[in-house]
């Protein structure tokens, strides 16, 4: 077990910086990639525009609906950021550098996904608005479908490492990255990442077909808090994907955290590009495909990985 070598207060600062920085980077990538896909003449300026949009939206007043559950409505974005921080805590940010690299990292990650589901559900339920409620229940269906995918993929990654700690999983990739010896893992984990952050093709709770669902009644600073939370979670998932499949902080010459940052930015760009490229999957089709196609694929992935490990 790799002990947490960061002093708790330092860990908090590092975690906060990574989350905030990650959210900013993902937001900038989203704006720039979106502008490129839209055919804007100067995509690079989209980042500044997005920042201005955030500031302007933040300064608008918030609103409240009839008889909402105010406590849960306020708690929802905070809970979402909280579980994103929890997920970040169990990921190794460098050799021996982790906020809390526990022996059961994978289990914590699974718990984070479930709690994220609860946070999004509360965000939609608390508003006492019909379309927001539909978005909330949709997310539960979506989430239950990809939760199992996440479990199988992470367990397959844990097989060569003989440990559920993410630090050990990175260490087991010294010879060969998991993306090469477990090829099905990365696409399946991408589905999980896009699903937990309800991004792009899996943006069912906040989809445009229900007029932005759970975010419909949200405006002003609360809306910015929600969007920042989503981007922070996507950043954490980009880091997790790099840790589990791309060797995390392993790499020559440059220090570990720099490698991790580079790999995470590449993965985050991929997620953001997929978000702008693939249309939103209809709810029932996603559930059917996840249970009849993706889950059997993950069984196959586990079986093949198991066989390879024993060789």
């Amino acid at each position: 077990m790799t002990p947490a070598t960061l002093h708790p207060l330092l860990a908090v600062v590092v975690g906060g910086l990574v989350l905030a920085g990650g959210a900013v980077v993902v937001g900038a990538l989203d704006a720039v990639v979106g502008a490129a896909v839209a055919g804007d003449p100067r995509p690079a300026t989209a980042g500044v525009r997005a920042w201005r949009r955030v500031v302007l939206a933040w300064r608008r007043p918030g609103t409240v609906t009839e008889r909402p559950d105010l406590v849960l409505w306020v708690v929802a974005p905070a809970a979402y950021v909280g579980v994103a921080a929890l997920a970040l805590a169990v990921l190794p940010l460098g050799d021996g550098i982790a906020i809390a690299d526990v022996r059961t990292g994978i289990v914590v990650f699974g718990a984070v996904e479930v709690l994220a589901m609860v946070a999004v559900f509360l965000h939609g339920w608390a508003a006492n608005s019909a379309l927001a409620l539909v978005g909330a229940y949709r997310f539960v269906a979506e989430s239950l479908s990809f939760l199992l995918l996440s479990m199988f993929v992470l367990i397959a990654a844990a097989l060569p490492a003989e440990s559920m700690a993410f630090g050990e999983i990175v260490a087991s990739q010294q010879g060969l990255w998991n993306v090469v010896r477990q090829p099905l893992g990365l696409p399946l984990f991408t589905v999980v990442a896009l699903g937990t952050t309800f991004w792009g093709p899996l943006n069912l709770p906040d989809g445009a077909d229900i007029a932005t669902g759970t975010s419909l009644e949200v405006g002003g600073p609360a809306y910015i808090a929600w969007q920042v939370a989503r981007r922070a979670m996507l950043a954490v998932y980009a880091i997790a994907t790099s840790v589990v499949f791309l060797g995390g902080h392993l790499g020559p010459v440059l220090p570990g955290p720099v490698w991790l940052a580079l790999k995470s930015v590449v993965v985050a760009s991929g997620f953001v590009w997929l978000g702008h490229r693939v249309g939103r999957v209809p709810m029932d089709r996603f559930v059917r495909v996840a249970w009849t196609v993706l889950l059997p694929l993950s069984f196959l992935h586990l079986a093949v990985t198991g066989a390879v490990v024993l060789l």
Partner: protein
Amino acid sequence: MAVTWTSAGPVPVFVATGAGGAAVRHALRAADEVDLVRSPRRACVLLVAGDVPTGDRSPLLQVHDQVPRPRGVVAVGARGMPAELAPITSSLGGLVATILEVGSQILVGEHDSDDVLPATNPVEWRGVGPNGQGGEGMMGGVPYGRAMAMTAEGSDGLTLDRLYLTLGPWLPGLPSGCRLEVGLQGDVLEEASVAYPTTGPTLAGQVRVASVEQLRARTLLGWLADLTDTAGLPALARRVSRLALDPTPEGVDAVRRRLDRRWGLPVATDGVGHLERDDVTGCGLGWLARSRGVDEDARRDDRAYDGLELAAPTDRGGDVTGRWRTWLDEAAEALRLAEAAEDRTTDRPELPWGSAAVTVEDRAVAHAALATRAVSGAELGRAVLTLASLPSACDADVAASRAEVPA
């Protein structure tokens, strides 16, 4: 300094599109200084584009009040605005500048728009007890102002609550002026009733064939832009909106290549909103019949189109994917016809949204019946996407409603 830095926008604008205001929506979607938001609660400026039908005036007042104060109202080409709103009118050309100006005035607190609906709650919140509880009982009574939903048997035999709602005329995602009255059980429309506006743009008198065909291209591409936006691809919708303002054949090909990829827009629209061939035959919506290979086209009988080759319609399948592929095909063909038509004129044009021989009211009724059949029993997201693929005449260009098509 924060004010001046952000005064270059993007201003969050909620567009309430009335009849004929679609061009405004596309112009703003393509603009950098304006951010189109999908909820009035995130907007700073309420923009009313196009004519407001009589029945939609009080919903518009409701939407206006849901925009948080301080707010502004801007109107473009909007006849029939309710008297209580005092909008700043603008032309399409100077719209972005007007919005930016209103936005920066709102930022510094120099501009606001008063509430128009009475501030008191029409439904008394308190019950009869000392703590506001009690009254006529929970089931079917009026606790705390609004009733709780009552149960009804669902299509799979379970008896659970059913919400009766009107997804109103000003909801983004639905076509302009379209009302969807639903009995929502969970997220499935157990009961549904669609209503389209019975007023809309018409073209009267002699019109140039080239202008009609260009209007067709702009309208169909505009529908595609809105559908792409509702299908979860806002960046590509921006690209299509830009094309819809100024269509070219190369642009249509480029958009088709980008959208019609295996993992692109068809992911969202395959298998959604299936319509049978019999449903669309004789519905008065020319393009819809042609999307299923039924050759209902007033242009074939029109003398003005003699010598201009019209392609035979192919059956693209009855789902939303087939319909937007038909839009792309017809837009490309329309641009080709506009090029070849030169100075021909016609007085019975095949309008982009249907045959001119059918009156607006009849078309609205047939259209509504068709849409109701398509969305009944469907899941809510699929229903909204289906309706986005069945737009009405109100989602056409502003110019059309002013009959500015030169004779």
